[in-house]
């Protein structure tokens, strides 16, 4: 019986470990993807589409067809799911000349944009071109400072600390963003208000990127809520990010499920074989029970009660051990810094699975024990 308990403990430990790690991965991955960047784009409704940004067509950049008003930023914060909104980063895009060379000007709120694009590698030290800001989201930027895309910086031959001129205004290059393979590479990023002045579009925005904490929210609902508040815009969910997150987590969850099913099957087999062995070993004992008046159901009850006790012990120990193992192996398995939560429902689930498997696997041995012929069992009489 000791080995049976150990077997149950190992089985439940494995399941609890995998399940807990999967659950924590879901939470952590959700958080990570939410941190990575926008999962919604808000662009004006327009008939003509001329430029694109991030693969999404942006209207009116060249032709000034339609714009979004700055008040839209505040309106986004008034939707029903407003607590799910993490970062709102408005942008104004326009073509300008920097040191007499053509460039795409992207007016941004530095704080919000850098919070959203925290994977950007920004070199701020001309003497150490391979060293990047450890936490770009913490950078404090003045409105007289700009960031340059890598291509533009090369074209202008400008390094961090030097100055560039837009018209008659000069700006300090605070940093150069390492090549992203996107529009930013040939852009100059400057303060939104400054950009509005230079482009002569006061209070106007070309697009808004929104990052929502979508681990807990349905993104489609947020899209609908924003569309309602901003009827003059198109709100697009950047589904790829959401889908990618789901795919990664789902793949691990399926793997964990498959392993758990195999473990459960093996566990059931171990319980079954042990209980059958126990019944065979105790033939004479069962014969005694039957001859002193125990009914078949009484004998079956003894076997099932034993299985239940073993299962409960295995379930509780397996849960506790599983949590310990999950806590110590999660960073290795998931390659993430995971927090393993102690949850009552996982404990109850572990106990439930353990008892159900233990009892189901013991039904046939119990039946075999119950139908033992007492005269056969006590052949010595």
């Amino acid at each position, binding site marked *: 019986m000791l080995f049976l308990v150990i077997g149950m403990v190992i089985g439940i430990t494995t399941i609890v470990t995998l399940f807990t790690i999967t659950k924590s991965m879901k939470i952590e991955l959700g958080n990570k993807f939410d941190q990575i960047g926008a999962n919604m784009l808000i662009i004006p409704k327009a008939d003509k589409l001329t430029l694109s940004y991030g693969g999404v067509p942006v209207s009116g950049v060249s032709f000034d067809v339609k714009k979004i008003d700055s008040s839209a930023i505040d309106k986004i914060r008034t939707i029903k799911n407003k607590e799910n909104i993490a970062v709102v980063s408005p942008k104004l895009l326009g073509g300008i000349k920097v040191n007499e060379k053509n460039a795409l000007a992207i007016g941004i709120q530095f704080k919000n944009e850098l919070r959203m694009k925290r994977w950007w590698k920004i070199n701020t030290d001309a003497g150490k071109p391979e060293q990047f800001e450890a936490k770009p989201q913490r950078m404090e930027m003045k409105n007289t400072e700009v960031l340059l895309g890598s291509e533009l910086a090369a074209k202008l031959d400008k390094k961090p600390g030097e100055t560039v001129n837009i018209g008659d205004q000069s700006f300090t290059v605070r940093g150069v963003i390492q090549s992203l393979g996107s529009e930013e590479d040939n852009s100059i990023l400057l303060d939104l208000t400054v950009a509005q002045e230079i482009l002569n579009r006061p209070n106007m925005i070309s697009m808004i990127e929104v990052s929502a904490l979508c681990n807990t929210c349905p993104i489609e609902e947020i899209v609908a809520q924003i569309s309602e508040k901003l009827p003059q815009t198109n709100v697009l969910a950047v589904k790829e990010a959401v889908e990618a997150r789901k795919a990664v987590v789902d793949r691990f969850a399926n793997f964990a499920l498959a392993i758990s099913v195999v473990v459960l099957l093996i566990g059931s087999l171990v319980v079954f074989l042990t209980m059958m062995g126990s019944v065979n070993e105790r033939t004479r004992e069962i014969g005694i029970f039957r*001859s*002193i*008046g*125990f009914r078949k159901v*009484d004998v079956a009850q003894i076997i099932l009660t034993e299985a239940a006790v073993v299962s409960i012990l295995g379930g509780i120990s397996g849960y506790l051990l599983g949590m310990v193992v999950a806590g110590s192996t999660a960073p290795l398995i998931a390659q993430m810094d995971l927090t393993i939560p102690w949850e009552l429902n996982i404990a109850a689930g572990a106990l439930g699975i353990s008892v159900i498997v233990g009892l189901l696997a013991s039904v046939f041995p119990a039946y075999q024990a119950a139908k033992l012929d007492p005269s056969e069992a*006590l052949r*010595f009489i």
Partner: protein
Amino acid sequence: MNIIEVRNVTKTYDGGEGLVTALGGVNLKVEEGEFLALVGPSGSGKSTLLSILGAINPPTNGEVIIDDINIYELSSERRADFRSEYLGFVFQQFQLIPYLTAIENVMLPLAITNRSTTEQREMAKAVLEKVGLGNKCERLPNQLSGGEQERVAIARAIVNHPPILFADEPTGALDTKTGQEIMDLFKTLNKEGQTIIMVTHNMDCLSYTGRAVFIRDGLLEKTEEYRKKVI
């Protein structure tokens, strides 16, 4: 009044090389309060007869009537209830459950009744005191001598106050002195009115009984009376 009546009971087994007749038409009556010995050599059929009387081995033919109940007409589960209510067994080699204490072994037959655990424990304690083991209730079987284990087995068999007590070679595993003590205990129980049917091949035990039925080759050979039944 007859408490047991065996009518034309036969028992045949499939012994692999054809049918083997264990009992070949047995008729027997046992009166209430009687102390009966079933005597015979190995393979004579005495243990088969005991198991048929004990409601655990249906005969091939014939009837067994106990207290006006034709026991093999009962369903298997009703027969289990019958055993619980009417019969006590003292098995060969004691057959105590090794992981249960003496008192827990004695409580076993009560576990399937509606009595509370406290009541079961009190009854078991009283009967252990009766067999002289009141101070060894909490011992495991391997902490008891052979004679003491036999007493626990007897206590387990009578704790439910069954009308009939079966004993299979009760002195077989004991030395002469301890065997006599156990037979004295059976005699005392019989004097109190307990019907006892005992299988034995130990002739020394027969003087404690009222009657001995000798069995050979599955047939009743002869009957010897030693004393009148007590009640």
